[in-house]
C-alpha cells in the first residue's frame, strides 16, 4: 500500500519492541504522522494490517488523542498553552496576538500550509509560563511580542529543523529550570522528536 519499504521496515522494528503487536499502536501512529503530517486513512489501513486489529479500532485510538492530527497541518504547528499557570501569566495575550498575526482561529491551518495554530492544555512548562511549542519543541517565558518575533522568523527563514534551545535563546525568557546539557537536535516535522521514529535530527 502507501508505505514504502523503508517505512515498513521501521514499523516492523518498532513492533518488535513490544510484547504484543497491538501495543505498538501509539508509536506507529506517530510514525504515520511523521510521514504525512497527519494520520491518513491509508496509514490507518497499513497499521491495522501490521498489528492485526481492525481499521476502525486504529481510527478510534488515533482520533482520541489530539496530538494525532486528523488533517494535514502546516509546516509549523504552533501550540500555545492556555492552562492555568500560563493563563495567569497572560497567555491570552500571546494567543490573541498570535491569532492576529497568523490570521488563524483555533485548529486552523493557513493557505500556504505554513502555520497551524492551536491553543492547548498544559505542556508541562508551568514554571516558565507562558509557554508554547513549535512542532512540540518548547519555548518558555514568552511575551506576546517575542512570540510574534518567533513566528516572523519562522516565516522568513522556514528552517527544516526547529530546535528548542535555539528558539529559547532567541525568543524565550524565564525558564522553569535549567535544561542541563545543550541539545542541538530538533524536530523535523510536526511529530514529536523521537530517536526511534527518526523525527529528530541534529542541526548542522
Amino acid at each position, binding site marked *: 500500500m502507501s508505505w514504502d519499504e523503508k517505512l515498513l521496515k521501521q514499523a516492523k522494528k518498532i513492533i518488535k519492541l513490544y510484547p504484543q503487536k497491538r501495543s505498538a499502536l501509539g508509536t506507529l501512529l506517530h510514525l504515520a504522522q511523521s510521514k504525512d503530517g497527519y494520520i491518513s*486513512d491509508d496509514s*490507518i489501513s497499513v497499521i491495522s494490517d501490521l498489528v492485526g*486489529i*481492525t*481499521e*476502525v*479500532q486504529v*481510527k*478510534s485510538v488515533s*482520533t*482520541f488523542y489530539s496530538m494525532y492530527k486528523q488533517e494535514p497541518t502546516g509546516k509549523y504547528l504552533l501550540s500555545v498553552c492556555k492552562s492555568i499557570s500560563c493563563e495567569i501569566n497572560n497567555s491570552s495575550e500571546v494567543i490573541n496576538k498570535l491569532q492576529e498575526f497568523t490570521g488563524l482561529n483555533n485548529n486552523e491551518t493557513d493557505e500556504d500550509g505554513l502555520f497551524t495554530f492551536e491553543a492547548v492544555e498544559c505542556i508541562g512548562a508551568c514554571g516558565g509560563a507562558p509557554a508554547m511549542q513549535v512542532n512540540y519543541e518548547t519555548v518558555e517565558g514568552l511575551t506576546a511580542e517575542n512570540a510574534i518575533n518567533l513566528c516572523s522568523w519562522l516565516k522568513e527563514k522556514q528552517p527544516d529543523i526547529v530546535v528548542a534551545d535555539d528558539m529559547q535563546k532567541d525568543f524565550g525568557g524565564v525558564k522553569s529550570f535549567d535544561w542541563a546539557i545543550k541539545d542541538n537536535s530538533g524536530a523535523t516535522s510536526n511529530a514529536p522528536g523521537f530517536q526511534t521514529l527518526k523525527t529528530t535530527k541534529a542541526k548542522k
Partner: protein
Amino acid sequence: MSDKVNLNVNGIDIQSDSNKLLIEACEDSGIHIPRFCWHKRLDPVGMCRMCLVEIETPRGKMLVPSCTTEITDEMVVDTESDVVKKAQEGVLEFLLINHPLDCPICDKAGECPLQDQTMAYGPGESRFVEEKRHFEKPINISEIILLDRERCILCARCTRFSDEISGDPLIEFIQRGNKTEVNTFPNEPFKSYFSGNTVQICPVGALTSTSYRFKARPWDLKSTRSTCNGCTMGCSIELNSSQNKMLRILGVDNDSVNQGWLCDKGRYNFEYLNSEKRLKTPQKSVDNNFVEIEIQDVYSELTEIIQDRKTKINFLLGSNLTNEDYVAFREFSKSISDSEQTFYLNDDLLYKGQFGQNNELAKIDDLNSSDAIVVWAEDLKEKMPVLYLRVRQAVKKGVKLIVFGHTNETLTDIADVFYGKETVSKNFEIIKDVSKLNEIKNYVVGKNITAIIGKSTPQQSDESIRELSEFLKSNSNTKILNTYTKGNTYGAFQTLENIKGTKDFVDDISSENTDLLFVVGADPVGRSFYSNEIKSILENLDTVVSLDIFNHETAELSNFVIPVSSTLGEKEGTFTNIEFRTSRIDKLVPSPGQSISDSEFITSLMNFAGLSNDINSLEALNNKAFESIENSTRPVFDNLDKPSNLDGIINISDPIITTSENSSTKALFYTGEKLYGDSVTERHSESISLLGSKKFIEISQNIVDKFNLTSGKCSMVQDDMEVTLSYKINDNLPDDLIYIPINRRDLNKFNFSKEITFLPSRVEEALNVN
C-alpha cells in the same frame, strides 16, 4: 469457588456467590439497580454511571458504580439513599443534555431504557437551554443497520458486543469527549453476521434496523416465544407482530443455547412471510399450466391414487417441518402400508453419524467445560452462526480449539491449531497420522474433548469422518456433537425411522418404485448438489405433490402445489436442536389465503380417504411424537409450557439413519454454502437479499496459473452452461481444489462429478481487445 458472601442491601440481609458484581448480586435478590451500559453477557465497563450506589467504607459512605464493584463479605449497600437518587438524577440530566428527545419518531420509544429510567429516576424538568450537538440523522452503517449518533448515549454495548462476542469489531468510538460518536471506518461497513444483536441491546434508539424501522409501536405488538428453525442450533426467539404481520424477531436469553444472541439470518429471514408472492391457493398442473383447484378436489384426486393398493408412495421432506409435521407423515405412511417406509430428507450431507451406545453425545454447554474442542464439519460460522459464538466463547475461556480442514475457514482466526491443506487432502481425507501430530498429543490425548463432527461436503467419504471420531474416542474422553446443520433435522431424527438423504433419493427413486411423491418444504431442484438428477427423477414420476410456501423450481415440476403455513410464526409445534433439546414453536400470525399446515393437510387427506387415524389434533400429534420418552422429560406441550421448561427439554435419541455408505475418495470440487444465498425465502426477505448472494468461487493459486486467470473474473463452463463470476484466491485450499458456494442459483446446476472449465472472463477479453 462458590463461596457465599453476606451483604446488607437497603437494610435487608442477602446472600450471594462471591465473585459476583454488586449489580448482579442485587438483581438476583430482586433489587433492581438502573443501568445502561451493563449487560450480563458483556464485560463491565462502567461507562454510564447510572448504576451508582452508596457503600460503606472505612472513610464513610461512598458512591460506586455497582456494575464494576465486586461484592465482599459484610458489604453494606444503599441503592435508594438521597445521595444515590441525586446521583441518578444527575447522570440522567447529563445523558439528556445531548439527547435529541425525538421519541415521537424513534423506533425505541415505548421500550426504551432511557425513557423508562428517566421516568423512574430522572429529574422532572430539563434545565438545558443551549444548543444540542447535531449529527446527520441516521447513517447506514451497513445495508440493514442504521445509526443515529445524536441518540447514542455512548454506553459501548454495541462496540463491546462486536469485539467481545462476535469478534468482528467494525464499529468503534471515534473522537472523544462530547464529540465522541460510534462509527465505522470509511467504506468499511458494519458487515457482521451478528449485527442485529447490537440493535437489540442498544439501550436507546441509536441503532435501528431497516427491517423494523417505523413499522410499529411496542404497545401495538403482539408477541410470543418460539424457536428459530434456521439451523439446528434452535435459538430461542421472541416473535413480534402487529396487525397480523410479522414485524420483528428478538433473541431470548436461553443460557444453554443462544444466550440472547441470534445471527442476522435468523433475525431477518422472516420478511418473506409478508411477501405478496406467497402461494395462496392449491394448484394443479394441467397441460403444463398451473390452474387453481379446490382443496377438496386435491383430496379426492389424491384419494383415488392412494386407494389404488398398488400405489407406491415416497416422501422427500425438507428440514423446516415441525416434529408434529414429521409425525403426521409417519402416521400417514403407516396407515397405508405395513411395510417399512423410508423417509428422504432434503439434505445432501446426511450420513450415519456417530450415534448409539458407543458414543457419548455432547451438549452445547460441554464446549465450555472441555479441555479442547475438535472441529471437522461444515464451516460453523456460515452454517450455524450462533454455535460459532459458543465455540468462540469457550475459546475465550481458555478451551483449546483444534480445527481440521479447509472447510472451516472462519475458525482459523480463533483456532489454536489449524490443520489445513497439509493435513487434509483435496479429497477431504486426513493424510497424516493423527496420533503423531504434536498438538494432538499435547491438547487432545487423555483430555476431555468435545468433537464437533459432521460431513463437510457431499463428496467426503463417511469413513474419513469415522476415523477421526474413532481416534478421538479411543485416545481421549470424547463427547461428540454430531453436526447436521439444517433446520429441524434432529426433530426428524426423533420422530422418523429409516432416514436417508438426497444422495440415496437419487440412487433409489424411479418411476419403478414410486407413483406418488410428496415433496414437503423442499426445493432440491433449485438448491441441491444433486439438482439435475433430482429434476430428471421428478420429471418421470406419475404424481408429485409439493407442499410449500412459495412456488419454486421443484414446485414447478409438480402436479399439485399446496400452499402451507410457515413453521416460523404460522404454526404451533415443537423443534429439536443439535443436542436433542426440544422446545416450542409457536404461532403468532395467520398464514395467507388457503394455506394450512403440513400436518393439517395430511390428516385431512387421511380423513377424506377414510384412513383410520388417531392424530386429529395437534396435541395428539405432539403426544405421538414422543411416545417412547418417559413421562418426566417428555417434551409434550403441557410439559414444555411449564415456566421451568421454556428453554426446552433434552432427550438424547439414537436416530435410525439408513443412508448407504459414501465411499467416494475423489472430490473434484468443494461445494458448500455461505450463510446468505438466494433460496426462495431469502429472495423474498428484503434485508437478506440486500446482504448479497453474489456469485463467486474460491480457488487455489495453482488454478489461477493453470487457467491463466488474471482479471478477478472468470467464466465457469460445462456443456451448454456458462456462468460469469468473480473468483477469490484462497490460500487455505489445497492445489487443484475449487470452492463453489452452491446456495446460489445457476451454480448448483453444474454437474460436480464432471470436469468444469474456467476461462478468463469473456467480458474482460472483449475489453482487452479494445
